[in-house]
């Protein structure tokens, strides 16, 4: 009889014990939006440029480059027309259109005139002239396109920005840089050992990355056209670099005796100090746009979850609760959301959420692994790596997950990091403006 009572007590206890577990489990069922487009895009007309005879085209034509920029930008819907067509532009609500003229110069260059017009009145809003060798036509058109964005949106565009990523070359991972659209790839590292995790130093002067030449992960920096310099050699294994957008200081992970901590240091003097004293392991740091707070990953709950704290190590909060593997957060330049990678059933996918972890939106789904999201400096786009085609390649999508465009074609490419703005002289858009 007593045994019976005990049994019931045990069952009752077991039921009670289960309750909190179920309450926790319900966290796993937070509603997630999958790729609902919330983007406001503006129609814009694009008309092929008038061409002088005798241009031997190897590159895309100017209007094709502008069309690609407009499609990638996340700001426009292209209304293509062979010539100016008011009826078409008006029906498609394209209030503006771009066109121009291109002719060959005597010394083998191209003279390009680029125009932005108001469709109804044919008022010229913007005119630019570039004389460039054909191989630099793309960059000239990117420069014009960013001027168009500034004219129409009052914000800086990203057509002149670049992306650093890791490319497997002759079997070895090397750091490379290309224009944001994947063209003009330049190899930065030429080591026989793995190079990885590139990030941009302030002013886009160079990169910080990890190399294995000393048989361990260690940070190096290299200004473009200069030689490489090892960083923070007083630490054992260093990786996960994050450049402070205000001071240029480097926040990074260092592992010693199985414990991984965050450190922050000055790349010039080589001095560094521990960033936070936490019992857990911490990695993947990311600064807020004005460097007041830091996102990072901690394994204090067993698996990786995203946390945030002040730059002085105060006010630690957990951000992600859904799922068991949330890693590598990055703060949107507009400051209002974070992008991160989550693993579910062994597959990696990209999500964004609000700073308190609510309002989760899944951006990639059912297309291989998708990881390493990096924001464009205007916050409109996210570049990432995916093996949806069979090999890892770099893609760009809008911040709502729509309009996925592949920008690398061959080999294996991973770990993209977007540069800062290239036209530093333009005023910074106001905080919170869209």
């Amino acid at each position, binding site marked *: 009889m007593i045994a019976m009572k005990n049994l019931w007590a045990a069952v009752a206890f077991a039921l009670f014990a289960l309750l909190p577990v179920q309450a926790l489990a319900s966290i796993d069922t937070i509603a997630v939006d999958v790729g609902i487009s919330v983007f406001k895009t503006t129609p814009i007309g694009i008309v092929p440029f008038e061409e002088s005879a005798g241009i031997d085209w190897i590159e895309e034509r100017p209007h094709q480059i502008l069309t690609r920029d407009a499609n990638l930008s996340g700001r426009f819907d292209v209304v293509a027309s062979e010539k100016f067509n008011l009826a078409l532009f008006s029906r498609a609500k394209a209030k503006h259109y771009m066109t121009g003229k291109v002719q060959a110069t005597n010394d083998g260059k191209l003279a390009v005139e680029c125009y932005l017009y108001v469709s109804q009145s044919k008022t010229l809003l913007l005119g630019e002239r570039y004389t460039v060798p054909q191989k630099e036509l793309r960059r000239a058109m990117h420069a014009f396109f960013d001027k168009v964005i500034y004219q129409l949106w009052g914000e800086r565009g990203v057509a002149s920005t670049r992306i650093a990523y890791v490319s497997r070359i002759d079997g070895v991972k090397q750091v490379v840089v290309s224009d944001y659209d994947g063209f003009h790839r330049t190899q930065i590292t030429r080591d026989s050992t793995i190079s990885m995790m590139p990030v941009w130093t302030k002013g886009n002067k160079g990169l910080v990355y990890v190399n294995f030449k000393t048989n361990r*992960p260690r940070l190096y920096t290299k200004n473009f056209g200069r030689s490489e310099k090892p960083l923070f050699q007083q630490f054992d294994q260093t*990786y996960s670099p994050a450049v402070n957008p205000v001071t240029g200081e480097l926040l990074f992970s260092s*592992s010693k005796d199985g414990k*991984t901590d965050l450190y922050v240091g000055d790349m010039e003097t080589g001095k560094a100090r521990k960033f936070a004293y936490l019992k857990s*392991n911490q990695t993947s740091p990311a600064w807020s746009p004005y460097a007041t707070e830091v996102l990072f990953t901690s*394994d204090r709950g067993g698996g990786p979850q995203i946390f945030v704290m002040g730059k002085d190590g105060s006010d630690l909060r957990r951000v992600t609760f859904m799922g068991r593997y949330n890693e590598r957060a990055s703060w949107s330049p507009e400051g209002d959301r974070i992008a991160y990678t989550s693993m579910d059933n062994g597959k*990696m996918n990209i999500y964004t959420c609000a700073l308190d972890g609510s309002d989760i939106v899944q951006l990639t789904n059912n297309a291989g692994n998708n990881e390493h999201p990096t924001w464009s400096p205007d916050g409109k786009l996210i570049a990432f790596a995916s093996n949806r085609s069979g090999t890892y390649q770099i893609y760009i999508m809008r911040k709502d997950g729509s309009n996925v465009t592949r920008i690398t074609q061959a080999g294996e490419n991973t770990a993209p990091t977007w540069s800062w703005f290239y036209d530093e002289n333009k005023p910074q858009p106001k905080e919170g403006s869209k």
Partner: protein
Amino acid sequence: MKNIVKIALISSAACLALVACAKKQQPQTDPAAEGAPAAEASQDSAAQALTQAQADSLAAEQARLDAERLEAERARLEQLINQIMSEDVYFDFDRSELTEKAKELLAQVGELLLKEQRFTITIEGHTDARGTEDYNFTLGAKRAMKVKEFLAAYGIENSRMESVSYGKEAPKAQGETEEAYSQNRRANFRVNIKQ
């Protein structure tokens, strides 16, 4: 100008002489029981020459045995090193705890290291291809550390062990199968011999 040529000639002659000396000295260093007495004896009788030859052949025999012993020792060490380097320790997904099988295997490695005090090791922690590069570095570091802690408890001095994480960067098996993943979630060893 002439002086420089002269100096050059003299110095190159000196070099040659040195090389020649070195060559002449070599055979003398080999036989263990040789030296001044042998030099004196050289002018003596044929009997002495005979004992000399015997001593020579004995010494040669000794040298051959030494070489053989060294070679055997080298082969033994090589075999041990290979054994240690082939003893990969495997882990469960996103875990750094040692499995029972891993502990058995590490005890064998610990035994070898206790016997061969000259061995120092680098413990490399690895992960499978899933997950981010960053987190996998921390996971690999944790795995290497768990192995190091086990061996330290087994009696290996910490000064003989170094741990390093390769994250997911150095897979042993390619592919996206559980088979490949389980092969890659591992810690392995590099062995150095302390001089």
